């Protein structure tokens, strides 16, 4: 049943470019998809470990800059009169480096903040995002500062024996984003359903009890932060090569807020939540554009978020799932529990 819903949803999403010819809408779907990947990565932390990364856009932005600079090349002066010259590499390598370096940043942020629990992580992540934004703004030689990095190349996929396929069209980029989003979704699903995922949940529910059975808090949270940051970095790289221009505004706090809204409205701690919330809040601007000025739209977002949480307090996906199971268990008797087939009376 669940698998059927997933397959149907994927098939529906995959069919979109076949019937949707409006480039404006397709563009909105691509950028929305990129932000959905970001929201999924945020959900891994917020929904499955309870840690709020309020500077999450930093990992996204780092991914964007790393990928852009890898594929554009740079020539910068270092202290002591040295110069560091990097000639352009294929964008696909930029994509890989974006994942690695964003993940590394996630590691350091985690290392810094997870020794102490509570608001500490929130503060460290906010500060981290601000510091990175200032670096991007002021290290003009590397990043062009407010002038932005422009002419970022499209991603080109190497096809063995056939050369390369450069993804120029909206349709191609749509499928690229869809595939990366699917991989991220499956990765997170596997992770949270694994033994590691149970440790994360245990920590979130009752940390004292979790450590008493041997779960290492710092290690678990740090691994989650690394994976979350790496996925956000992948999204940032897609963003850079699709929009093809990035400036330090990518690090703006409002972008993190957008991701948080996507996660909360769709339902944190649910795999599909960020996808649903992301689609709603990614496409809302499209719907509101004819009737509202961009500044006024933020008020509408707030209104929509409050309305959703008023009707579905745990977010769309978990609240609807809860109602569905309640209705079903009301009509049919619960299946008897079957555990294991072993005849052992006591653990060996």
């Amino acid at each position, binding site marked *: 049943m669940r698998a059927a819903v997933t397959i149907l949803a994927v098939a529906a999403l995959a069919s979109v470019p076949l019937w949707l010819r409006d480039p404006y809408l397709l563009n909105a779907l691509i950028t929305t998809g990129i932000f959905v990947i970001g929201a999924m990565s945020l959900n891994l932390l917020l929904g499955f470990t309870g840690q709020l990364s309020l500077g999450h856009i930093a990992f996204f932005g780092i991914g964007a800059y790393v990928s852009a600079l890898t594929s554009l090349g740079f020539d910068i002066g270092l202290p002591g009169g040295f110069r560091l010259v990097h000639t352009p590499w294929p964008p696909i390598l930029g994509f890989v480096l974006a994942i690695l370096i964003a993940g590394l940043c996630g590691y350091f942020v985690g290392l810094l903040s997870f020794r102490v629990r509570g608001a500490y992580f929130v503060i460290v992540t906010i500060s981290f995002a601000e510091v990175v934004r200032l670096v991007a703004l002021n290290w003009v030689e590397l990043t062009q500062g407010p002038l932005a990095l422009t002419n970022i190349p499209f991603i080109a996929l190497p096809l063995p024996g056939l050369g390369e396929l450069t993804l120029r069209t909206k349709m191609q980029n749509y499928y690229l984003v869809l595939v990366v989003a699917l991989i991220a979704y499956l*990765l997170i699903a*596997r*992770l949270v359903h*694994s*033994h*590691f995922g*149970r*440790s994360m*949940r*245990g920590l979130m*529910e*009752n940390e*004292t*009890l*979790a*450590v*008493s*059975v*041997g*779960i*290492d*808090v710092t290690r678990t949270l740090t*691994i989650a932060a690394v994976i979350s940051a790496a996925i956000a970095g992948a999204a940032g790289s897609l963003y850079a090569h699709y929009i093809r221009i990035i400036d330090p505004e990518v690090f703006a706090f409002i972008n993190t807020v957008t991701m948080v809204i996507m996660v909360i409205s769709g339902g944190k701690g649910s795999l599909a939540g960020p996808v649903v919330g992301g689609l709603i809040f990614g496409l809302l601007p499209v719907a509101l554009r004819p009737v509202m000025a961009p500044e006024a739209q933020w008020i509408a977002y707030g209104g929509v978020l409050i309305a959703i949480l008023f009707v579905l307090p745990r977010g769309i996906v978990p609240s609807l799932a809860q109602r569905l199971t309640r209705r079903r268990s009301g009509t049919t008797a*619960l299946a008897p*529990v079957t*555990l*294991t087939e*072993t005849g*052992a*009376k*006591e*653990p*060996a």
Partner: protein
Amino acid sequence: MTARSIAMTIDQVAVRFGGLVAISDMSFEVGEGEIVSLIGPNGAGKTTAFNVMTGFLTPSAGRVAYRNTALAGLKPHEIADLGLIRTFQRTSVFPNDTVYDNLLIGLHRQGRVRLLDAILSLPGARASERKLRQRAGELLEWVGLERRAHDAAGSLSYGEQRLVGVALALAAEPSMLLLDEPVSGMNASETHRFVELIRGIRDRGITILLVEHDMPMVMTVSDRIVVLNYGRIIAEGTPEVIRNDPAVIEAYLGHGAGRA
């Protein structure tokens, strides 16, 4: 307990909270495979002693060693890795998870697989997962919670939640188990079954240190009893000896005999 080898040594441990002396100069040993009870009136320092032994609290003085490993500076999860596992006085479960999933979380120590193997769902990871599920089922049966397997742990009765707490500790594969008032909140028949469970645990070679106010239970189950009052050990010996110790009777009467 002459022939036994020593599992845990508590050596001149003291704990102060600001001006309050919760434990002063506490020394005793627990032998391998023994059931030792730590008793004393409310506020005597029993839970504090557990917190020191499991790394949740750093003592102001003294040292604790488990199987010749000094515990100073070890984090709780590292101490758990030595096989020293505790339960909590206040009910402590993962409330939103089913009882079955609670045990799977508790099985953490046995389920370590490489993360990449788990993500790629390699055969090794799948085999480990199967083993964990089987083991969780066995533990449920052992503590008698099979019928509650798929209920949220937080929805269980108080007594059942205490059992989940013990099952969780057992899932962590202890070589020594510290139980903090495990039968409080249990009715008479639940308590009776629990005594059987404790004996069963000991028969598997697991050393037990028990904190409990239920005196009949302590007297039947313990090999040895250590009595604490105002953070100080006032008596130590077999249930027979303790039952007739004037200092113990005095301590309990002084605090209101109703509790004892």
